[in-house]
């Protein structure tokens, strides 16, 4: 069995998760503290990829980074490489499609963050950077962790936009999702089942590890709280 689709899927999803992680948190941080008017408009734009059909995202992407698109043609002329129909083309697609999941969950976490923690940190002389990484992020950990996993899972399962910008080239651009489709179309049901099964295992492993991470993080606090309640 050729394992390329698995490696490629993990590589694409991994890279796009790293990108959405930072981009999503950055966007969430600025938008959660923005003025209502700006907030509404930007929020719409950033959430759009979640509600648009992936094929529409793929269509726009092709128009933009395809060999004749405004970005694609310049990159081709300047650096001599194509932005579509390669393995890394899928990263553009999955990043855009999975971004809203990271952004929205991180924003939810930031908005429920108690701002007095930020204020007290500042009046105590702690730098804003310190407060962001050592107070805000740890206290929003659950939301951010959930967002990261959700966007990784979404990137792993992305089909519509990916297939439009990468096509299906065995051993070069094939991902699990495009492979399953291709195998089914060609009537190789047995092989398709295998990939479906692999996909299920990955999803389970991801979800279970998140649950365990959350439990190990929250338990000491929860136990402490019980002790305090019982003591008073």
């Amino acid at each position, binding site marked *: 069995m050729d394992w390329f689709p698995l490696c490629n899927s993990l590589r694409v999803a991994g890279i796009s998760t790293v990108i959405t992680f930072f981009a999503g948190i950055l966007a969430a941080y600025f938008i959660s503290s923005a003025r209502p008017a700006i907030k509404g408009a930007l929020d719409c734009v950033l959430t759009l990829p979640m509600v648009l059909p992936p094929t529409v995202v793929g269509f726009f992407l092709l128009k933009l980074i395809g060999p004749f698109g405004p970005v694609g043609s310049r990159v081709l002329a300047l650096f001599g490489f194509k932005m579509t129909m390669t393995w890394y083309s899928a990263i553009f697609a999955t990043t855009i499609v999975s971004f809203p999941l990271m952004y929205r969950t991180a924003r939810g976490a930031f908005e429920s963050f*108690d701002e*007095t*923690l*930020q*204020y*007290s*940190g*500042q*009046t*105590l*002389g*702690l*730098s804003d950077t*310190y407060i962001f990484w*050592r*107070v805000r992020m*740890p*206290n929003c*950990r659950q939301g951010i962790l959930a967002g990261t996993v959700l966007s990784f899972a979404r990137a792993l399962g992305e089909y519509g936009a990916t297939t439009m910008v990468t096509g299906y080239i065995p051993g070069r651009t094939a991902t699990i999702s495009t492979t399953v489709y291709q195998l089914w179309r060609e009537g190789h049901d047995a092989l398709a089942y295998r990939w479906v099964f692999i996909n299920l295992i990955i999803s389970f492993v991801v979800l279970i590890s998140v649950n365990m991470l959350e439990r190990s993080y929250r338990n*000491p*606090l929860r136990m*402490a*709280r019980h*002790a*305090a309640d019982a*003591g*008073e």
Partner: protein
Amino acid sequence: MPLYVRLKKDFGTFLLDVEFEAPDGVMGLLGASGCGKSMTLKCIAGVVRPDEGAVVLNGRVLYDSVKGIDLPPQKRGVGLLFQNYALFPNMTVEQNIMAVLSSRKNASEEKFRSLVRRFHIEGLERHYPASLSGGQRQRAALARIMASEPSVIMLDEPLSALDSYLRWQLEGELASILDDFGATIYVSHNRDEVYRLCSHVCVMSSGRTEPVRTVKDLFESPDTLASSLLSGCKNYSRIERVGERRVRAADWDAELECGAPVPDDASFIGIRAHYLHPVPEDGDNVFPCVVARVTEDVFHTIVSLEAGSSGHGFSKIRMEIPKGAARGLSAGDTIRIGVKPRDVMLLKK
């Protein structure tokens, strides 16, 4: 500490417009909930930017909208204790305090230990805030603030999150800490706390401040309706001036003699509940009322009365008399009550 504060901030439906100069020692900022006390503290600390004004601490300009000075909260040297104490929940008590000490580049085990001793948090160093009681949290938060070596500390309703027994206990601890430290602004809506803990007080109502005065002065002779309400006076009437020392209490249908000349801007009078007493006959400073209810309290009797015919809330009068003095009174009776001229407080709006 001398702290001079003049701030304006427009919230659309609410205008914050404060000005006061806090003398050395503990100054209370007293006002009802939602009058802008917490916002004032946030502006002084620099975590919220006012529209205009100035904040000067010990001659150091922290904020001046005209000169364009706006020090970040990190550089102001103003410690702010939040109502919920705002300890970082993801850090132990030790980590909370060490975070502050380390940022000042003079962290030492010795400094940490001395704070732990001073605030009686021995044995709690490795606890997370969630596992501490309210009092322990407050001490840990105070220790953390002292680690930042502030020039002034501001306490925002530090006792209101606690139940009444614990509150009394903690007030004692707090009092000795404040005595040690000095420069403090103590925010509260509780007049008793302010009376016991502060030397000076600044009364605030709907976003505005009154001049700073001594606590004694405020409770003995409040001069505005807001400060009188906060000092615990229960009975008020709108007035018209009818003589140099005489007013007509519109809500009580009565003419009263006052202990002092009536100022032009006086628009209310206030009489404390225990300065009213029933009298047998008509006379000066006596007026009729109808008894609405007689309530036995622990140490005295509260007589609720209805005076005049304005129907305004002010026409309800509360009289507190020694137990036994109300014998024979029942709802529906008409009685005469009197007040001494010097017990009639003249109040501005």
